[in-house]
């Protein structure tokens, strides 16, 4: 049993956004641990808080309208306590991020090679030549064809898949140990998506990276993740090894999510199983379980108390009071 401390240790994270008329508690007490070399997928829908969690690890939120408290420790570094200068060092070197739309994340007026070189030189005393060599080898690593030529191209001149590879190269330029991926394959075609997912898996294996992968697509999560965590209304409601979560989910939301997927085995003319209602308004969350009003298994106690996380097995945690009822439900038809 691995007794090393986790590489990423998030405890009781709360994030409030105060920019609008009412404060919005986007994250309400998230605990997340990621070991070295482990891939964790965060699944959820709009408003679940998965992207906010990810961005908190790099402190990408606007300082003015964001309140964060709790604990975020990455590689022994207390992220919430970093000064601005230390934060700039931390980003890229310890943890870095790839985004959903590379065109928005890459600078359009510099070639991709120049951006990688700049990042390398920012984080260490490396000569320009060496930085350029490293950029070239990164491009080869992410399997961009004709890498030497491509270093000179601009982001808009590249196709979608290639841009995403370039962004991965940029993220890995300074040898981070944690890679944060915010829906990196959502905007890609199916045949390109599977290439990028496999590339990420291969890179992760070769480099021993820890990866936190945010997505709304359960299929993509299953392809890359060792563990999956499901988020709802700013909390993690269930987390566990990918196989357990997919085959024997125990939280009603996870169950409902899996059952509402359209897939090949459904009979023609049947209807999808839907989750009644709509996601909650984060600025006015109920006292009890946030999912209770949409839940088939909800009882009175659910509406009154926040369910604490129960360990169903060593690695499988569920925040639900009705796990007995869900133990016999079939997830996938």
């Amino acid at each position, binding site marked *: 049993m691995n007794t090393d401390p986790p590489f990423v240790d998030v405890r009781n994270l709360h994030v409030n956004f105060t920019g609008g008329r009412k404060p*919005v508690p986007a994250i309400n007490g998230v605990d997340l641990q990621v070991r070295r070399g482990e891939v964790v997928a965060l699944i959820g829908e*709009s*408003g679940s808080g998965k992207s906010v969690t990810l961005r908190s690890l790099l402190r990408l939120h606007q300082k003015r309208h964001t309140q964060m408290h709790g604990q975020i420790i990455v590689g022994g570094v207390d992220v919430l306590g970093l000064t601005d200068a230390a934060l700039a060092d931390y980003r890229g070197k310890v943890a870095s991020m790839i985004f*959903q*739309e590379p065109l928005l994340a890459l600078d359009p007026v510099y070639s991709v090679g120049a951006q990688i070189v700049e990042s390398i030189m920012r984080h260490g005393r490396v000569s320009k030549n060496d930085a350029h060599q490293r950029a070239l080898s990164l491009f080869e690593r992410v399997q961009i064809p004709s890498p030497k030529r491509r270093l000179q191209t601009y982001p808009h001149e590249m196709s*979608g898949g290639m841009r995403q590879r370039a962004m991965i190269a940029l993220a890995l330029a300074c040898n981070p140990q944690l890679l944060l991926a915010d*829906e990196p394959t*959502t*905007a*890609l*075609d199916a045949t390109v998506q599977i290439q990028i997912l496999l590339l990420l898996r291969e890179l992760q294996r070769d480099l021993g990276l820890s990866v936190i992968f945010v997505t*709304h697509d359960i299929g993509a999560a299953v392809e890359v993740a060792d563990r999956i965590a499901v988020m709802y209304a700013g909390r993690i409601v269930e987390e566990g090894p990918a196989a357990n979560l997919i085959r024997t989910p125990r939280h009603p939301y996870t169950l409902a999510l899996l059952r509402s997927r359209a897939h090949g085995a459904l009979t023609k003319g049947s209807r999808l199983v839907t989750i009644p209602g*709509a*996601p*909650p*308004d*984060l*600025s*006015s969350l109920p006292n009890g379980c946030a999912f209770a009003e949409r839940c088939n298994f909800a009882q009175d106690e659910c509406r009154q108390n926040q369910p604490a996380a129960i360990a169903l097995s060593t690695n499988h945690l569920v925040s639900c009071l009705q796990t007995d009822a869900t133990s016999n439900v079939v997830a996938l038809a």
Partner: protein
Amino acid sequence: MNLLRVQSDASKVMALPYDRTPGYWQTVGQRLLRDKVAIVAALVILLLLLLALFGGMLTPSDPYKTSMLSRLKPIGTANFPLGTDELGRDMLSRLMVGARLSLFMGITPVILAFIIGSAVGITAGYAGGYVNSLIMRTIDVFYAFPSVLLAIALSGALGAGITNSLISLTVVFIPPIARVAESVTTQIRGRDFVDAARASGAGAFTIVRVHVLGNVLGPIFVYATSLIAVAMILASGLSFLGLGVKPPEPEWGLMLNTLRTAIYSQPWIAALPGVMIFITSIAFNLLSDGLRSAMEIKG
């Protein structure tokens, strides 16, 4: 294929109140009312407009009465609170009555140019293609001239006088307004809801009337209001050069011209009409800025 996940709008889904929420323009009005700078600017403009309308009746002295004995009296003289000009006329009275002509010369060309320029620009923007090129390249020819030169040239060609300066100023402002109108219309034209309207079989006029106008007139109007200050200054410039208002009519630009010689003896008095132009320009600019901010409502 680019699919950006829709940002979290979960907060909108909760029980909406039964009663009607305000429409777009009401929301703009509410936001404008909260903008203190814009309110002050609006009040200043209101005062100036009142001055323009009623100034003539409220002047302490006759703005046209000359007096060779009372020439260039300084500010604070008894009977002449702001002094007198080079012909002995009361500055305060002339400034008050001057508001009428100056504002008229500033606002009217912009209103006319707004109507004509919008029509031209929206047509070009909606039609696209060959028609658009034809219209916009013609507009560009006029746009190439610096506005001051163009105004002077047109005024010179038409002759001096208020009507002619109004015409030349209107012509000067049509191209920039048309450009903005074309640009905004082209953006709206590309939106899916216009395609949806086309797909429902509506004709071009109907689509422009129902779908385009409501979305473009606002931004064009804001741009046009920012031109009022420029129009006033240009009109003053034309009067300064003798191409606009003719003496003895009080108009701030003309007054700047005739008081030129007094810069060395009574600089404060010579500057007064300029101060009025300055105040008016700033007020209009601030109001149009406020309007622009109020209109940027993110849905």
